C-alpha cells in the first residue's frame, strides 16, 4: 500500500496536533481555567486520523464524549475548538456546547456526544441522507467499547445492514468504559463476530499502528463507496489519561499507563516506520512538531484572552423561529 508523501505529512501533522492539544488541555485543566468535564484522546490518535484520512467534504462522522481527536481529524479548526473548550463566544458552538458538544456540520463533523451510544443512529441518518441525495458520501460512527453494549449502537448496526447504508462502525476500544474493563463488559469477547452477526464484515486492528488503521479504513471506505454496505473495525489501543480529567485511574494497575506510554505510542511508531523506510526525513517531522507547538500555544493564549458569551446569547440559537 502506497501512501503519498503529502498524505503522510498531513497524517503526522494531525496526529501530532491531537496529541499536543490533549497534553496541553491536561496541563491547563489542572490550573482550574477550563470548566466542566473534558475527556482526552491522547494515545488514540492513529484511529481518528487513519480513518478520517479516507474521508472528504461529502462525508460525515459522528463522534463521542472523547471527541477532540475526531474533530481535529475531520478538519475542525483547533483554535475555535480551544475557545469552545474554554467556553468562549468565539468557540465553534459560541461557548454553548463545550468539550462534549464540539461540532462543525460544514466540515462533516456531526458532533462530539455527551451520551454513550448517541452517535451511531445519527451516522445512519447521514448515510441515508447521502444515499437519498445521491452525493456518494459515507458516514463514520466512532464509538467506544462502552457504547458497543448500548442498544442504539446495535440497533444502528442492524438498521445500516438491512438498508446497506454506507456506515463505517468504528469501535474504539481503549480497554475501559469509564472504569470498567472492556475485556469483561463485551459479552462474547469477540466484537468482529458480533458485527458479522449483523452481516457487517469487520476486522481487529492494533490502534497504535497508524498504517494498519489506514489500510483497513481505506479498504472499508472503498467498499462502502462501491455500494457494499456498512463495515466494521475493532481498533484496540490505550488511553493515556483517565476517563475524564480528574480520574485517578485507581482501577488500572500501578505503572500501567507509564509502561504503555513507553511501548504503545502511535506517534513513536509512525516516526520509526517512516524514518527506517526513508519515506520522510526526521527533520520534516521535527518541523511539524514545532509548528504544532506554536499552534497550540496560540490556541491557548487566544482562548484565555477571548471574551465569554454575552448575556443575550443565553436565549438565542434555540429555535430557528419561535
Amino acid at each position, binding site marked *: 500500500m502506497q501512501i503519498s508523501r503529502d498524505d503522510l505529512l498531513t497524517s503526522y501533522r494531525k496526529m501530532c496536533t491531537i496529541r499536543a492539544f490533549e497534553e496541553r488541555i491536561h496541563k491547563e485543566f489542572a490550573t482550574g481555567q477550563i470548566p466542566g468535564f473534558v475527556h482526552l484522546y491522547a494515545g488514540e490518535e492513529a484511529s481518528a486520523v487513519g480513518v478520517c484520512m479516507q474521508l472528504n467534504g461529502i462525508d460525515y462522522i459522528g463522534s463521542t464524549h472523547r471527541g477532540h481527536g475526531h474533530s481535529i481529524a475531520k478538519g475542525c479548526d483547533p483554535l475555535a475548538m480551544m475557545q469552545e473548550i474554554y467556553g468562549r463566544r468565539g468557540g465553534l*458552538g459560541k461557548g454553548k456546547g463545550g468539550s462534549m458538544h464540539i461540532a462543525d456540520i460544514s466540515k462533516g463533523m456531526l*458532533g462530539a456526544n455527551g451520551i454513550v451510544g448517541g452517535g451511531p443512529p445519527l451516522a*445512519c*441518518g447521514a448515510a441515508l441522507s447521502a444515499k437519498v441525495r445521491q452525493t456518494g458520501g459515507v458516514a463514520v460512527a466512532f464509538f467506544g467499547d462502552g457504547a458497543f453494549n448500548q442498544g442504539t449502537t446495535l440497533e*444502528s448496526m442492524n438498521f445500516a445492514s438491512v438498508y446497506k447504508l454506507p456506515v463505517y462502525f468504528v469501535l474504539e476500544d481503549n480497554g475501559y468504559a469509564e472504569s470498567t474493563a472492556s475485556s469483561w463488559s463485551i459479552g462474547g469477547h469477540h466484537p468482529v463476530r458480533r458485527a458479522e452477526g449483523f452481516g457487517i464484515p469487520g476486522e481487529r486492528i492494533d490502534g497504535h499502528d497508524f498504517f494498519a488503521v489506514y489500510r483497513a479504513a481505506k479498504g472499508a471506505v472503498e467498499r462502502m463507496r462501491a455500494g457494499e454496505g456498512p463495515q466494521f473495525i475493532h481498533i484496540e489501543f490505550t488511553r493515556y489519561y483517565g476517563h475524564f480529567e480528574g480520574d485517578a485511574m485507581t482501577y488500572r494497575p500501578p505503572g500501567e499507563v507509564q509502561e504503555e506510554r513507553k511501548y504503545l505510542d502511535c506517534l513513536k511508531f509512525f516516526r520509526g516506520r517512516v524514518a527506517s523506510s526513508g519515506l520522510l526525513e526526521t527533520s520534516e517531522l521535527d518541523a511539524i512538531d514545532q509548528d504544532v507547538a506554536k499552534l497550540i500555544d496560540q490556541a491557548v493564549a487566544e482562548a484565555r484572552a477571548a471574551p465569554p458569551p454575552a448575556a443575550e446569547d443565553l436565549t438565542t440559537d*434555540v429555535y430557528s423561529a419561535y
Partner: protein
Amino acid sequence: MSRKSFRQALNEAMRQEMERDPTVIALGEDIAGGMGAKGAQDAWGDVLGASKGLLPEFGRGRIYDTPISESAFIGAAAGAAVTGLRPIAQLMFVDFFGVCGDQIINQMAKFRYMFGGKATTPVVIRTLFGAGVRAASQHSQCLYPIFTHVPGLKVVIPSSPYEAKGLMIQSIRDDDPVIFFEHKAMYDDQEEVPDEPYAIPLGQARVVREGADVTVVAIGRMVQFASQAAAALDKDGIRCTILDPRTTSPLDTNAILRSVERTGRLVVVDEASPRCGMAADISALVADKAFRSLRAPIRMVTPPHTPVPFAAELEDLYIPGPARIQATVTEVVKYN
C-alpha cells in the same frame, strides 16, 4: 374543498409536501408495510393508514419501512435532517418514546443550541396518542408535556382534520424538530378540508368560539368536548370562549392572557396526566401574569393521576368528558 377524515387530511399534507420538496422522506415501522414480505406492498400505510398510498407514488427511495428499532430510525431521522433532508419519522405510539428518548431529547432538540446556531434539524416525528380506544396503559398516554418541557422541540396537537392538514404542512416546512401528536380516537372525524396545500403557523392559538363569561383552554380532542359543553352551557346563558392553543411549544401565551383579561375566568381542559401537565402550566401562567383579572379560582379538568385503564367503564370515567367540563365551568361562573 371536500369532506375529509383526519387520516385523509394527514395523508394529503404529506403527499403534497413530498411532491413539492424532494428532500422530504418518510420512515418508520410499517409506514408502507409488507417490506421484505411476499404478500402485498403498502399493506398498512402505517398502523392507522395515514401514509397509505405514499409508497406507490414515491417509491422505496423515499418511503422507508424500518425494523422495530426506534432509537435507530428516530436517530437516523435526526442525522438525516441535520445533513440536508426533511424526514417525517413515525413513532407509532408516543408511549414508545421511552425506547428512543435520548435521540429526541438529548440529540435533535439540542443540536442548534449546542452547535452555536450552526445546525438546523428539520424533522417531524408523527406519533399517535390519547385514550378512548381501549388500548390500555402502554398505548393511550398524552405525553406532550414531556416534550413541551424540552427546549428546542416544537409540539403540535391538531384538534380537527382541517387543523391536522395545515399544521402538518407547516411542521414539515419548519426548520426545527417538531413532535406532531395525532389523537387516535379522532382518525375518522370528518370535516371540510381544502384540497390545495395551506400552512397554519405554529404558535398561534385558534379561537374556536367567543363568549364573555369564561375562557376554556382545551387541547387536542378536548376541544371537541369543550365545544359540546359550551353548546349545552349556552342554554343556561353561560357564554364560553374556547381557545385551542394548537401547539404547546411555542405556546401562544398572549392569546390566553388577553382572553382571561376579558372574561376573568379560566378553565383548562387537558387529557394529559395532571402533575406537571399543560393544565398546570397554563394555570400557572395565568396566575402569574393575569391574577388581577381573575374573578374566580382557576379550575383544571384532567384525568386522575393514574395510568390509563383498560376496561371501558374505567376508561370512560378516566377521560375528561363534556359533562365534567360543563359542571366545572358552571361552578367557576357561579363563584362569588
